[in-house]
């Protein structure tokens, strides 16, 4: 049985751990609010970009079979998977669930004899994936110095990937990130970004204007050449923002659980401590009484 002193120390240490998890929860909550705001403010941009993409790409037929970001290359051999994870740990299942989704995809692709290349954004994902697929990782991106994600960060990543694409290093690109649904739920999402996926939305109110006629200056092809890289960067930017909101949400609920577990633990330890203390007192009393009787 642990001594009273030991118990006291244990209670104290659990209490200080609880203080830390509580503080982390508060910080995560504040950061989550910021991340959510950022995600919301970027929404008009990506929505409008999507509309613009739709109105241009509809009816656009590439004249030559060269590599482009809209229709992709003719080949279907090499896949580039981009994994979005966090830079810091202690955020529940955030990193492991998205890494798991990536692993499943890699297994599927390898069964079909495709070549897989991986880019890790965030240190934690790299740590998880490198054990199994160390050879496939072609690049990592460290965002630990970035406090709040700016468009420039996404631009750097997308420039790198686009360069790889035109150097014929991959044929298709998929991104893996956690989509923010709520504080307690983040959905691991797989999205194809190269070739660009045009999602047709039938109940879209904009459907009528999609059919409308546009004049282009310069021609459609040249506008697309500029628009597609930009659109790609926006997808990356969106994924980064979603991922960071999810990370904070995940951390917040993980820390909330940890604080609750700590207080359960403190309760049971305190009970145990009180019982042991009472036992010691009773024991001493018995000793005194039986000593007195023996005299």
């Amino acid at each position, binding site marked *: 049985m642990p001594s009273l002193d030991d118990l006291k120390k244990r209670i104290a240490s659990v209490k200080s751990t609880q203080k830390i998890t509580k503080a982390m929860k508060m910080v995560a909550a504040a950061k989550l609010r910021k991340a959510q705001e950022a995600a919301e403010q970027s929404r008009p*941009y990506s929505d409008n970009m999507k509309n*613009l993409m739709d109105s241009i790409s509809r009816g656009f037929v590439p004249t030559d079979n060269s590599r482009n970001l809209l229709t992709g290359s003719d080949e279907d051999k090499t896949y580039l998977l981009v994994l979005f994870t966090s830079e810091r740990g202690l955020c529940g299942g955030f990193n492991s669930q998205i890494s798991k989704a990536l692993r499943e995809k890699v297994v599927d692709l390898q069964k079909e004899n495709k070549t897989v290349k991986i880019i890790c954004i965030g240190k934690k994902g790299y740590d998880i994936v490198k054990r199994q697929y160390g050879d496939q990782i072609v690049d990592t991106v460290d965002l630990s110095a970035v406090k709040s994600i*700016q468009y420039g960060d996404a631009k750097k990543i997308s420039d790198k990937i686009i360069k790889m694409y035109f150097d014929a290093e991959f044929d298709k690109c998929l991104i893996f990130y956690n989509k923010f649904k709520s504080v307690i739920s983040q959905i691991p999402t797989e999205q194809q970004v190269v070739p660009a996926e045009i999602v047709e939305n039938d109940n879209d109110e904009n459907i009528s*204007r999609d059919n409308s006629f546009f004049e282009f*200056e*310069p021609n459609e092809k040249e506008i697309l050449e500029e628009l597609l890289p930009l659109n790609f960067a926006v997808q990356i930017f969106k994924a980064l923002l979603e991922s960071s909101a999810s990370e904070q949400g995940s951390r917040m609920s993980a820390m909330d659980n940890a604080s609750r577990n700590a207080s359960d633990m403190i309760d049971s330890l305190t009970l145990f401590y009180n019982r042991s203390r009472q036992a010691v007192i009773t024991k001493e009393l018995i000793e005194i009484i039986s000593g007195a009787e023996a005299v």
Partner: protein
Amino acid sequence: MSEIFSIKLVTPSKVFLEANASLVTVPATEGDIGFLANHVNFISSIRPGFISINLESGDEKVIYISEGFAQFNDNSLLIIAVELIEKEDLNSDFVNQKIIDLQNMQDSNISNIKLQSKIDSLKSLSL
């Protein structure tokens, strides 16, 4: 009183401006374009330069744009930009830095003609 139409300027981080205007001049890649109400539906890319907006109230607003796209549709003009800065907040150091960045890119990139035209339009900005 000239007719007005709605304009919207968006950047990745926020909606920069949403207002009604009577005339908007945009530095499109193939020359400046002035948009009035009831312009034909139009899509164009934009080179670095200044967008000038005559607002409904009669005020004029001048905004720097680094690159982007303009879409005119159903009497509303949408400008999708990477970067927008009010002209008053812009200084020559910033523009010079941009030129240097682009020149650095020029060495490593293939599509030099486009970069060169961007550099040219940056250089021709009068501050």
